[in-house]
């Protein structure tokens, strides 16, 4: 009988439902309950997707970097760190993509163009491409151990660029608005329902990230198991052929 493989468990089902509820709450808060912005009016609403997406992407990339360090240190080396790093980076790239697309749509409304060559948007794009490179390294067909080491180094170098992305708005001072929620003096710019909607958006995206990483991690485990079984089956077939030919006693 064919074995039924799944990455789901009762815990991930609960996490999935919580993510859905949080996303729905964010949609209600962001689209209906939060008021229009004084300056941007209704155009402020992409904020509740755009900003949480890049925060979660940062968390995903930092997680990938931390797991890469844990994999590189011989005392803590374990294949699970490599799998978590890969899963986290993949999901981080997706959130980074959501941030870029929502930013472009928001830019079309507020600036009149999809793309402005301002520092933060451009740096976010570079970060996105850097981690695409990381994923490309992970997809190379070499032994898992060698691939893991190269990917771990790549993740650390790419993560070193995250501060440049976030603080580039301060360094390069261009068209992009100042950081939306927390300024350098840590005064909150958003208040009331707007801040609530943003907070819910962040929690919802974080739950989705957690749910997706668990599934991707389990998928990686299944992929490795399937590869091991395929290799074992191929060896067994070859052995049977040789036994049939009388070459192995």
């Amino acid at each position, binding site marked *: 009988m064919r074995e039924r493989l799944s990455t789901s468990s009762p815990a991930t089902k609960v996490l999935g439902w919580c993510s859905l509820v949080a996303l729905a709450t964010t949609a209600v808060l962001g689209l209906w309950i939060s008021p229009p912005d004084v300056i941007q009016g209704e155009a402020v609403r992409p904020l509740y997707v755009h900003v949480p997406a890049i925060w979660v992407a940062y968390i995903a990339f930092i997680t990938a970097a931390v797991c890469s360090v844990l994999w*590189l240190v011989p005392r803590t080396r374990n294949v699970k760190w490599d799998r978590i790093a890969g899963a986290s980076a993949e999901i981080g790239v997706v959130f980074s993509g959501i941030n870029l697309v929502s930013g472009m749509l928001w830019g079309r409304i507020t600036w009149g163009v999809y793309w402005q060559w301002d520092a933060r948007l451009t740096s976010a794009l*570079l*970060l996105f*491409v*850097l981690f*695409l*490179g990381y994923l*490309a*390294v992970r997809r*190379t*067909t*070499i032994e898992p*151990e*060698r691939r893991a*080491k*190269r990917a771990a*180094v*790549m993740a*650390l*170098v*790419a993560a*070193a*660029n995250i501060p*440049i992305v976030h603080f580039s708005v301060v*360094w*390069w001072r261009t068209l992009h608005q100042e950081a939306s929620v927390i300024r350098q003096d840590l005064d909150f710019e958003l208040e009331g329902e707007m801040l609530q909607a943003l907070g819910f958006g962040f929690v919802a995206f974080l739950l989705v990230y957690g749910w997706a990483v668990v599934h991707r991690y389990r998928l990686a485990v299944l992929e490795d198991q399937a590869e091991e079984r395929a290799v074992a089956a191929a060896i067994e077939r070859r052995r049977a052929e040789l036994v049939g030919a009388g070459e192995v006693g």
Partner: protein
Amino acid sequence: MLRDACAVAAKDLRLEWRSKVAVNQILPFAVLVLVVFAFAVDADAAILRRIAPGLFWVAVLLSTLLAAGRSTAVESADGLPDGLRLSGLDPAGIFLGKAGALAAQLLVVEAALTIGIVVFYDVRIDDPLLYVAACLAGTITLASVGTLYGVLSLGLRVRETLLPLLVVPAVAPVLLAGTRAHERAFDQVTGSGWSWVGLLAVIAVVYVAAGLAAYGSLLEEA
């Protein structure tokens, strides 16, 4: 470490001197980039002068991809990575040597490109010290990144296509800061260009440190 670095750099430069790939292929290619860009903007002298700093660094970046690919390729054939590993040389020294040789080749390309932008784009360098400092700091980063990602892609079947994907986004800040510094060196904009040279120096330190720390580990697995 430094002695090992000098030995590796001398080996790489000797290889280049004998094969003449950098001089006969990479250098003409870099100058060709300047010419092609002139075609692209319809040879408008004012526009070319204005965008010369950026075009200079784009040409250097493209040359880096070729030179770094070449620097990696010479180590990938006939079990040479095993030879490097078994040579007893300090891995940090190997990194410094290979990066140094790559930097030397890029500096030659930049010298040719400097003549190119002066001749073809009618650019005047008002602050040569700033210009050279930006070139040096940027070149150290480009050579370090090229060498680090070169060993990272060593032995991979997709090396030629993977290397540009890894190198270009990583060195984009060099393009930005180098262009800003050269704009000031050409007196196109007001203000000090030294803060941009400072940024280039910081990025260079980060990548040299990353290369020194990671090169040996990556070479072991190559």
